[in-house]
């Protein structure tokens, strides 16, 4: 029998932690969620992720797995259940490519679109829309990026659903929720209404409260350090 699974997350509803939870729920793996106060990191977190000291961390028996997308693949491979990655090697490569793109290219301008104003914001919005156009094309009218069911790439892109919707509501900017990307808009609705996903998705109200509280602190960090900061922003 498989040893118990613990997931170390945080009180802040991070889309990275969500990725790990979504994978566990879609796979049907029971787990205990431990919420960290990131201002006051526990021994447990420091012991299991000494290098990065970040969440999420999946603890499965003796094994600690860090990095959200690495966790998603681990969950897919270590447990039985519906596959999260496609079976065809080239399709798997495409899913990994676009997931990587989200983290290396899309995240920063998306976050900065909401944290900045004026001309700076216009620039980041333009860049974000270019990225969304690529993803819209990749979705190609399918229900999910994975096809008929939620898969690895849908999970990887989950920040484009609830988190982006909250950003859009708070700032009045229109991205996924607007008319420019009908495929993505429908995808976001499908993703957030999925039975397994819903159970680990923070509510709009909850996220709004968190973003308001964090906004100023986060803005200075994001502007100062670009990628690392934009990542730190939502962790």
């Amino acid at each position, binding site marked *: 029998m498989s040893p118990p699974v613990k997931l170390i997350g945080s009180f802040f509803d991070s889309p990275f932690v969500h990725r790990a939870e979504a994978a566990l729920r879609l796979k049907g793996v029971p787990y205990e969620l431990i919420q960290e106060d990131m201002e006051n990191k526990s021994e447990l977190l420091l012991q299991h992720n000494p290098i990065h000291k970040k969440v999420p961390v999946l603890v499965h028996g003796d094994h600690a797995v860090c990095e959200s997308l*690495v966790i998603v693949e681990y969950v897919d491979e270590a447990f039985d259940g519906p596959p999260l990655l496609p079976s065809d090697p080239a399709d798997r*490569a495409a899913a*990994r490519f676009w997931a990587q793109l989200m983290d290396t290219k899309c995240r920063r301008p998306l976050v900065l679109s909401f944290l900045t104003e004026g001309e700076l914001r216009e620039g980041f919005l333009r860049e974000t829309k270019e990225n969304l156009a690529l993803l819209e094309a990749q979705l190609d009218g399918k229900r999910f990026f994975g096809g008929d069911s939620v898969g690895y790439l849908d999970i990887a892109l989950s920040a484009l659903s609830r988190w982006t919707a909250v950003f859009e509501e708070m700032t009045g900017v229109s991205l996924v929720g607007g008319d420019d990307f009908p495929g993505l808009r429908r995808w976001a609705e499908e993703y957030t209404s999925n039975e397994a996903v819903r159970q680990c998705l923070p509510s709009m109200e909850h996220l709004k409260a968190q973003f308001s509280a964090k906004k100023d602190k986060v803005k200075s960090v994001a502007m100062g350090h670009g990628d690392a900061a934009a990542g730190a922003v939502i962790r």
Partner: protein
Amino acid sequence: MDHHLEQQAAESEKKAVKLLGMWASPYVLQVRWALAMKGVEYEYVEEDLRSKSAQLLAYNPVHKKVPVLVYHGRPIAESQVILEFIDDAWNHRGDPILPRDPYRRAMARFWARFKQDKLSPPIWRWFTTEGEEQEAAYEAAVEQLLVLEKELAVSGKPFFGGEKVGFVDLSLSPLAYVIPIYEEIVTGGGGGGVKMVTEEKMPSLAAWMGRFLSSPAVRGHLPPLEKLRPRCQAMREAFLVSARAKVEQQQQQ
């Protein structure tokens, strides 16, 4: 399979697999080593990155970079994604590139990202700066290298992949042949640069470097170092000149 059929299979494979690359790119090299590990025949296309081909732009419109592996007309980009693809597509052939065990696979992916996110940036900064900035970058790079050193020492294995070269070794490969070049250039320039990987400080890593370079898939498949050295030197000089010009500009304002 008789010789004739074998030949046919190899030729047909060569038509199915194409690699767009550039001789100096360590990312391209990793892919070439992975293909060699699996014994895959392929067509190699050398790209001039200052004048990118229509083919490259069509196959990798998002990044416009090499390597791009084209498999039966389908392009695959980003070196780590390509390495995993090679392992998946030729799963039945040669040695595994990633471990089979899910936890060990997760660790392999973790270390490959570590190299990209934590190790490469300070090494690059060390190579392209001088003075205090360079010293700080050096310290940061050494700190991360020591993490790797510990990992390898604790495992007691010859390679990060275990008994044989694997995904992490391939991802770390620039360390094995580029760092010595960087060390030579930085020290030679009178910048007071010290060696980054020494046998005293990092015995496991130092041994790994030599072992990696003499492993079957890698041996004989290195870029021409006599061409690489001046190229790296020119890069460092270009960065230094640009940084000095900026400082001058700021002082004049």
